[in-house]
């Protein structure tokens, strides 16, 4: 993903070089000033460089374009092989995630603006830049341009083409034997008997007239001029191609694959990028579910990263930093933040465990809480957790209020904030009937092992599964899971229970129960 910027620049350059004056309107429409949409192609391509897979309606809305117009442009780009598109019936997909009934109703609303006539099934189109192909397409195009000009210039090794001005049928010199006639010295069209015109002459000699004598020489000069002009004007593009040559092209994969991955990794790339894809992914789901998954995962990733840092340096500052980052995220997106916080809560537990066990390898995940403890009171570590647990079980309703307040509470104890966030996350999950691993841990720690937890792992695992798809994060998840069980031995009885739960969940995931239940 780090290499996407040069590719975006390539796309932009190519758009301006080749698609600047493309108009995508039907030929039958009158060419009035208003309907002149040249430049739209560039706008669309630019917009696509800022997105990954995007629903076309969303894109149209963002660009303030009519969907029809956008679609025409995109179809053009699809033919040009710059863009990959995917169409699918949304509700079918939605049904997978939700019950069919829910999907039919809830999913229908957001899609209502555009779509096919079918009642419940709406076909939605998604589009995405295909960077590796764009690279090839642009190179090929340049190569063809250069070759054509050079061949014309040298008139070498080119098979002359002839074209019939009447019926615009084309012939090559290889057909010459069939085209000659006995009564004059021109080639004649086989179908309409018109006199054929050599195509290259037409190409360069349009403005030069038909003068035989100097035409050829002048054509030569003109071609040479064109070639140098081309090299000169396309230099930025060619340079960019060279720059991009050794970089791996950003690959988004197919829509489905991308969605899975985006759910996992969308957040870790930073918010602006993640927003658009998440939007579209929300589109199919129509619910915050994917969000939950995303946030969890990304948070995990970042936290793990931070953990590593902390392990390496063993300094509090890093952790503080991370905490601030968390808070920031929190403010930005209440819902997501909750989930994240919940995660941190989980981490906290892990921390406690790690503290107890005092085995550095296992300690990895829970750095965050640990910091908070250190900051506030060093001794609090365990007590804090305990209080949390108690509060989570009892005060699910409070979470909403707390949520809102949390944002303001930067100055407050980080610990408190965490607790609140934790509650909020718990509440969310309970509402949605989906429990995350963390929640399970929590509940188990509260010694309230509920059957719900076990019944609902499939939904939770929507997120988890996607997590695993992503290389890094998948590893991290495993780390945590592995870390948990050994910690159990060293922990208190409460912790021990928690660990058991974790273990059970982990095993479920490992066995790919997800697939069972979803399928």
């Amino acid at each position, binding site marked *: 993903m780090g290499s996407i910027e040069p590719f975006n620049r390539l796309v932009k350059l190519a758009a301006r070089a080749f698609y600047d004056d493309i108009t995508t309107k039907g030929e039958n429409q009158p060419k009035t000033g208003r309907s002149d949409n040249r430049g739209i192609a560039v706008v669309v391509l630019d917009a696509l460089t800022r997105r990954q897979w995007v629903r076309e309606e969303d894109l149209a809305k963002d660009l303030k374009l009519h969907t029809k117009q956008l679609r025409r442009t995109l179809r053009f780009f699809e033919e040009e092989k710059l863009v990959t598109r995917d169409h699918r019936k949304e509700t079918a997909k939605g049904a997978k995630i939700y019950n069919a009934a829910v999907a039919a109703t809830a999913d229908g609303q957001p899609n209502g603006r555009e779509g096919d006539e079918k009642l419940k099934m709406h076909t939605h189109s998604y589009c995405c830049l295909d960077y590796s192909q764009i690279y090839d397409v642009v190179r090929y195009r340049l190569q063809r341009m250069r070759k054509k000009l050079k061949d014309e210039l040298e*008139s*070498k*090794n*080119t*098979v*002359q083409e002839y074209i019939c001005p009447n019926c615009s049928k084309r012939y*090559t*010199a*290889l057909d*010459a*034997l069939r085209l*000659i006639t006995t009564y004059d*010295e*021109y*080639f004649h069209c086989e179908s309409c008997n018109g006199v054929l015109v*050599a195509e*290259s*002459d037409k190409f360069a000699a349009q403005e030069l007239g038909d003068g*035989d*004598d100097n035409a*050829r*020489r002048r054509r*030569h000069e003109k071609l040479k001029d064109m070639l140098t002009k081309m090299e000169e004007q396309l230099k930025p593009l060619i340079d960019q191609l060279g720059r991009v040559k050794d970089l791996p092209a950003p690959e988004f994969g197919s829509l489905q694959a991308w969605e899975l991955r985006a759910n996992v990794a969308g957040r870790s790339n930073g918010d602006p990028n993640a927003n658009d894809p998440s939007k579209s992914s929300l589109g199919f789901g129509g619910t915050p579910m994917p969000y939950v998954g995303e946030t969890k995962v990304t948070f995990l990733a970042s936290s793990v990263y931070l953990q590593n840092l902390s392990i390496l340096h063993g300094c509090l500052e890093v952790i503080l930093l991370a905490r601030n980052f968390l808070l920031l995220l929190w403010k930005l997106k209440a819902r997501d933040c909750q989930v994240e916080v919940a995660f941190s809560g989980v981490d906290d537990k892990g921390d406690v465990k790690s503290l107890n066990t005092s085995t550095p390898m296992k300690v990895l995940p829970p750095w965050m809480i640990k910091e908070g403890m250190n900051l506030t009171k060093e001794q609090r570590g365990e007590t804090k957790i305990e209080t949390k647990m108690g509060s989570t079980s009892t005060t699910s309703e409070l979470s909403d209020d707390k949520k809102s307040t949390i944002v303001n509470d930067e100055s407050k104890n980080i610990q408190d904030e965490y607790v609140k966030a934790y509650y909020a996350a718990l509440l969310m999950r309970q509402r949605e009937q989906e429990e995350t691993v963390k929640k399970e841990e929590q509940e188990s720690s509260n010694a309230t092992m509920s059957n719900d937890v076990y019944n609902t792992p499939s939904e939770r695992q929507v997120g988890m599964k996607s997590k695993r798809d992503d290389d890094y994060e998948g590893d991290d998840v495993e780390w945590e899971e592995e870390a948990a069980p050994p910690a159990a031995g060293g922990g208190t009885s409460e912790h021990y229970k928690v660990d058991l739960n974790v273990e059970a969940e982990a095993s479920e995931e490992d066995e790919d129960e997800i697939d069972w239940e979803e399928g």
Partner: protein
Amino acid sequence: MFFHIVLERNMQLHPRHFGRDLRDKLVAKLMKDVEGTCSGRHGFIVAITGIESVGKGLIRDGTGFVTFPVKYQCVVFRPFKGEILEAVVTMVNKMGFFAEAGPVQIFVSNHLIPDDMEFQTGDMPNYTTSDGSVKIQKDSEVRLKIIGTRVDATEIFCIGTIKDDFLGVISDPGATS
């Protein structure tokens, strides 16, 4: 380019040739049938140089014709892209000129003729340099390079160029006569 290769063909022989000189008749018929034909794969079959073997004949039901599988050696001529050939000009027009190299017809379009040669109409249409020292007209011999071939099942047609070093007119028939 010429090749000496072995080909096989099933020959059908009329019963009236069955006799002492069956084999001669078979060979004569083979030559008549095959020489001068063109296959896209092997090119023009120029000449049969020998019979490798004649297989067992098979009498066809109903007709009494007998089919002999015959293996024969022959010389084939197959033009290739990039090959240099010497050819005789057969026709000159505004679009270029046609030439023949043995059985192969070659077209050289006017933009593959050197830029200093101009087309001159008249009784004998020709391409001439500005100083008149070189002239391409009917029956001129030219050396050309093949830049494209079209190979059909029974026909090969080539495009040539004389716009390269050492290509062009070899001798002018007008000078000798």
